[in-house]
C-alpha cells in the first residue's frame, strides 16, 4: 500500500513549486514529485530535493530561550517568554513611545502570519514594520505600481514558453529559480530569441543567443540605448503608446538625445549587439523581460525597473500571452508579504499609508480609529537604533546580520538594543545577539497560504506535528497579541484568510474553501467568490486610475560614474545550492559540499596583475571593512569586477548602505572594493 502523500509548497524560492511528502509513522520519509503542477511540472531544484534534511536537522531550535548579559542561554517556558517580552515591549512603549519598537516581518512565513504580524505592529502603535522585500524587490513594487498599477509579475511563469523573444536582465534564474529555465528552454526550442544581459557568465547566459556582458551598474544606460535605437528605427508600437499609455512626450526627448555610440563604450558592449538586441526585442511578436536583483539592487534601482517597464510599453509587449514583465521574486512568500502590507509605506493590498480615506476604512475593520504612519525601513531602522530612537526590535524569521548591507554596522546596532526578539528555526548569526529566541515551526508543520512570484496563492497544509516546543508563527503572534492586550483569542489560519478576503480586494475571492481544494491555487487579482483568477494582467486596461500605463522618464546619463583604476566593483549574488543568508543551506551537507566556503571570483588578467593564484586566501577590502575569502580565478567575470555569493556572513560586510531615494533599497550591487593576497 502506498503511504499517504501530502502536498506542500516548497519552502525555498519564489517559484512556488509543490511537492508531496510521503508520511509514515508521523515522519516525512520521502518526496513525491507532482508532475501536474503548473509551475514546474514537478521539477525541483537541489534545494527542494533536500527539504527533508531541513525538517529533521539536529540544529533546529526546539525550545524558547533567554540570553543573559553574559551570553549564556537559559531555557524558559513559552508563557514566561511571552510574558516577559510583552511586559518589556509595553514598558518601552510607555517610556519611549510606540515608535521606539521596530517589527521585521518575514517573506518566509505565510500570508496569514504576515497579515497578523503587521496588524499587531500597527495596532500596537508602531509604524515601523518592514520585511526583506526591501532588500530585493522594493523598486519593483514602487516602479511597477506607478507605471502599470500593481507591482507584480504580469504573466505566469509557464507563459514564458509562448514568448518569441526573451530579454533576461540582471537575473541568474538558472541558479536562483532553476525551474524557470525549463520554460525558457522550451521557448528557445520553439524558436524564441534569448538575450541575456549580465556582467557575468552564468548558466543563464549559456541559454542565450546573445549575451551582453555589460559593466556592473549600467543596466539603465543599456535599456535607454535600446529604446533610443528602437525609436531611431521607428520600431515602436505607436498604436499602443497612443491608446494605452501616457507620458510618452516626456520620455521621447530624453531618448532622442541618447548617443548610442557613447553608451556602447560606457557599458563596454559592442554597438552591434545593442542594436541587435533592440531590433530583436521590438520586432518579435511577443517579447518578455525577465529581471531580478541585478536591476533592483542599485542606487537607481527604481529607475532601472521603470526603464524595463518603459521598454515593454514602448513596444507594446505587455498584456498578451508571452509578452510581459517578469520580476522574479526571491523567497517563497515575498510577494504575499508585500501584498499583506508588511511594508512601511503600504497597508494590506498596496494601500499607501498616506491615503487617509482608504486607510481609515481598513483600520475601521480592525476596530481602530487610526494608525501611525511614516514608518522606517529595515536599513533606516538600523540607523535609528544607532541614534537611539529605536529601543526594541521584533524579528520574525530573518537574519539581518547576514542579509543587511554593512554587516559590522548592523551588528553594532543590534547589540545596542534594549530588547531583541528573534523567532526562527535555526540558531542564526542574529540569534547570538538576541535577548529572546523563540522556536518556530517549519513549513510542513503549519498551514497557511503562500503567494509565489507569479501571484499564485497556494495553500500549504499542516502535515506534520511541530518538533519539540516549536510553535507555528501564527500561534506566537496571536499569543503575543493576547499578552499585549490587542486581541482576545488566537485565530486559526482560515479565520485570518477570511479577514484578508475582506480587507484586501485582490484576495477577495481566494477563500479558504476554494484554496484547500486546489493544488494549483488561484492567481490574484481574484476579487469575487466565483472569479477564476487572472493569470495575465493588463489585457484590457492597466490598474491605474485612468486605465493607462505611464512612462516614467529616466535620464541614465546622470548616473554614469567613472570607475577608479585599481578598485573593483563587487557583484554579490546567489549560487545554485545555497539560499539567501545560508542559515539553512549551509547546514545541509548534501548542498554545502558543493560550495563549502566563501569564494571570490576574479578575472585571470586581474589575478595575474595582482599575483593571485587560484585557491589563495585573499583579503577583500570594502569601504568600511575587509574580509577574507578564497580566490577563484575564472573569466566568468569581467575584468575589474569581482563576484561573491552572499550566503556567507562575510559578503554583506562589504556592501554599502547607499539607498535608492524612492524604494529605499540598499545598493548591494554597487560595492567598490580592493583585493590583495592575505598578509600583504
Amino acid at each position, binding site marked *: 500500500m*502506498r503511504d499517504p502523500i501530502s502536498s506542500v509548497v516548497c519552502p525555498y524560492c519564489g517559484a512556488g513549486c509543490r511537492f508531496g511528502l510521503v508520511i509514515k509513522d508521523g515522519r516525512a520519509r*520521502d*518526496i*513525491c*514529485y507532482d*508532475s501536474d503542477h503548473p509551475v*514546474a511540472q*514537478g*521539477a*525541483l*531544484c*537541489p534545494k*527542494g*530535493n*533536500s527539504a*527533508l534534511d531541513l525538517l529533521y536537522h539536529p540544529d533546529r531550535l526546539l525550545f524558547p530561550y533567554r540570553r543573559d548579559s553574559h551570553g549564556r542561554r537559559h531555557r524558559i517556558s513559552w508563557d514566561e517568554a511571552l510574558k516577559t517580552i510583552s511586559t518589556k515591549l509595553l514598558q518601552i512603549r510607555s517610556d519611549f513611545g510606540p515608535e521606539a519598537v521596530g517589527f521585521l516581518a518575514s517573506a518566509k512565513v505565510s500570508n496569514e502570519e504576515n497579515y497578523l504580524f503587521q496588524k499587531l505592529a500597527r495596532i500596537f502603535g508602531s509604524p515601523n514594520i518592514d520585511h526583506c522585500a526591501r532588500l530585493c524587490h522594493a523598486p519593483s513594487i514602487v516602479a511597477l505600481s506607478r507605471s502599470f498599477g500593481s507591482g507584480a509579475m504580469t504573466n505566469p511563469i509557464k507563459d514564458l514558453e509562448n514568448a518569441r523573444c526573451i530579454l533576461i536582465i540582471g537575473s541568474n534564474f*538558472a*541558479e536562483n529559480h*532553476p*525551474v524557470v*529555465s*525549463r520554460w525558457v*528552454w*522550451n521557448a528557445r*526550442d*520553439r*524558436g524564441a530569441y534569448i538575450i541575456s544581459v549580465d556582467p557575468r557568465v552564468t*548558466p*543563464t547566459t*549559456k*541559454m542565450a543567443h546573445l549575451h551582453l556582458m555589460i559593466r556592473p551598474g549600467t543596466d539603465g544606460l543599456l535599456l535607454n540605448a535600446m529604446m533610443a535605437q528602437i525609436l531611431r528605427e521607428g520600431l515602436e508600437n505607436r498604436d499602443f503608446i497612443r491608446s494605452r499609455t501616457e507620458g510618452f512626450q516626456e520620455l521621447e526627448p530624453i531618448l532622442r538625445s541618447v548617443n548610442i555610440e557613447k553608451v556602447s563604450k560606457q557599458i563596454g558592449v559592442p554597438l552591434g549587439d545593442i542594436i541587435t538586441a533592440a531590433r530583436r526585442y521590438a520586432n518579435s511578436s511577443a517579447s518578455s523581460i525577465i529581471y531580478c536583483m541585478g536591476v533592483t539592487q542599485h542606487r537607481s534601482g527604481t529607475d532601472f525597473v521603470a526603464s524595463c517597464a518603459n521598454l515593454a510599453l514602448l513596444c507594446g509587449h505587455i498584456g498578451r500571452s508571452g509578452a510581459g514583465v517578469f520580476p522574479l521574486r526571491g523567497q517563497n512568500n515575498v510577494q504575499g508579504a508585500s501584498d499583506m502590507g508588511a511594508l512601511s509605506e503600504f497597508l494590506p493590498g498596496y494601500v499607501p499609508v498616506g491615503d487617509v480615506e482608504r486607510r481609515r476604512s481598513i483600520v475601521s475593520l480592525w476596530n481602530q480609529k487610526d494608525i501611525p504612519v511614516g514608518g522606517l525601513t529595515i536599513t533606516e531602522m538600523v540607523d535609528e537604533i544607532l541614534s537611539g530612537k529605536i529601543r526594541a526590535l521584533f524579528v520574525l524569521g530573518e537574519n539581518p546580520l547576514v542579509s543587511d548591507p554593512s554587516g559590522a554596522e548592523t551588528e553594532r546596532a543590534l547589540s545596542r538594543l534594549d530588547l531583541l526578539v528573534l523567532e526562527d528555526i535555526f540558531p542564526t548569526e542574529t540569534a547570538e545577539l538576541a535577548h529572546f529566541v523563540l522556536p518556530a515551526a517549519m513549513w510542513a508543520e503549519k498551514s497557511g497560504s503562500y503567494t509565489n512570484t507569479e501571484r499564485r496563492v497556494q495553500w500549504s497544509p499542516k502535515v506534520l506535528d511541530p518538533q519539540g516546543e516549536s510553535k507555528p508563527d501564527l500561534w506566537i503572534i496571536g499569543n503575543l497579541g493576547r499578552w499585549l492586550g490587542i486581541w482576545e483569542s488566537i485565530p486559526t489560519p482560515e479565520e485570518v484568510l477570511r479577514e484578508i478576503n475582506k480587507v484586501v480586494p485582490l484576495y477577495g475571492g481566494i477563500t479558504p474553501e476554494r484554496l484547500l481544494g486546489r493544488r494549483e491555487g488561484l492567481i490574484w487579482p481574484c476579487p469575487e467568490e466565483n472569479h477564476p483568477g487572472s493569470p495575465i494582467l493588463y489585457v484590457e486596461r492597466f490598474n491605474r486610475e485612468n486605465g493607462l500605463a505611464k512612462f516614467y522618464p529616466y535620464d541614465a546619463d546622470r548616473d554614469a560614474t567613472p570607475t577608479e583604476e585599481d578598485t573593483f566593483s563587487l557583484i554579490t549574488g546567489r549560487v*545554485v*545550492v545555497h539560499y539567501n543568508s545560508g542559515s539553512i543551506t549551509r547546514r545541509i551537507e*548534501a*548542498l554545502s559540499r*558543493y560550495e563549502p566556503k566563501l569564494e571570490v571570483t576574479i578575472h585571470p588578467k586581474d589575478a595575474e596583475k595582482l599575483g593571485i593564484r587560484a585557491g589563495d586566501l585573499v583579503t577583500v577590502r570594502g569601504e568600511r571593512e575587509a574580509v577574507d575569502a578564497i580566490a577563484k580565478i575564472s573569466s566568468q567575470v569581467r575584468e575589474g569586477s569581482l563576484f561573491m555569493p552572499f550566503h556567507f556572513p562575510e559578503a554583506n560586510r562589504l556592501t554599502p548602505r547607499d539607498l535608492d531615494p524612492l524604494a529605499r533599497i540598499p545598493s548591494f550591487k554597487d560595492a567598490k572594493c580592493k583585493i590583495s593576497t592575505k598578509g600583504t
Partner: protein
Amino acid sequence: MGSSLRIFLRPERCINCYACEVACEKTHEGMGNIKVQGVPLVCLHCEVPPCITSCYRGALEIKEGIVVIRKDYCTNCGICVLSCPFGAIMVTEVERDGKKIPRIHKCDGCWERPYGFAVCALTCPSGAIGWERFEDAVVSKREKVYRLYLRG
C-alpha cells in the same frame, strides 16, 4: 520494447544545478548514480551493453530496457566498471567490519520505486534529463529544427 521509455539526455539544456545528484542520492541511500559536470552523466542503458558482455556471472540484466544489477549475483569485482565506456558505473567505498569495501552501483531507472520513472528526470528543472520514447525524442528534435527554419 520498441516503445518503452528510456533515458534521453539533452546535454545543451543542463544548467549544472545538481538537482539530479541530490535527488538520486536521497533515493539511493547516499549512493548517487548520476554525476553532473556541465552535463549530467548517468547510465544510458545501452541496448547492447558492454557491461553485460563483460560480466562473467551474468549479474547484469536488461529489464524493460533498463540495465540493472542483480544484487545477489554481483561480486563487486569491478570489471563492469572498467568496461563501461562512459564511466557510468560508480564505486563507493563502504565500511564493513572495519575494512573499506568497494560497492558497485549504477542507475536502476528507479526500478523499484513508486515514482513512475527515474527521479532525476522528474526533478530536472530545465528538462535536460528526459525519460521518454526514443521515437518521440527524435521527432521532437526535428520539430525544433523545423521551427528554427520557420523563424528564418
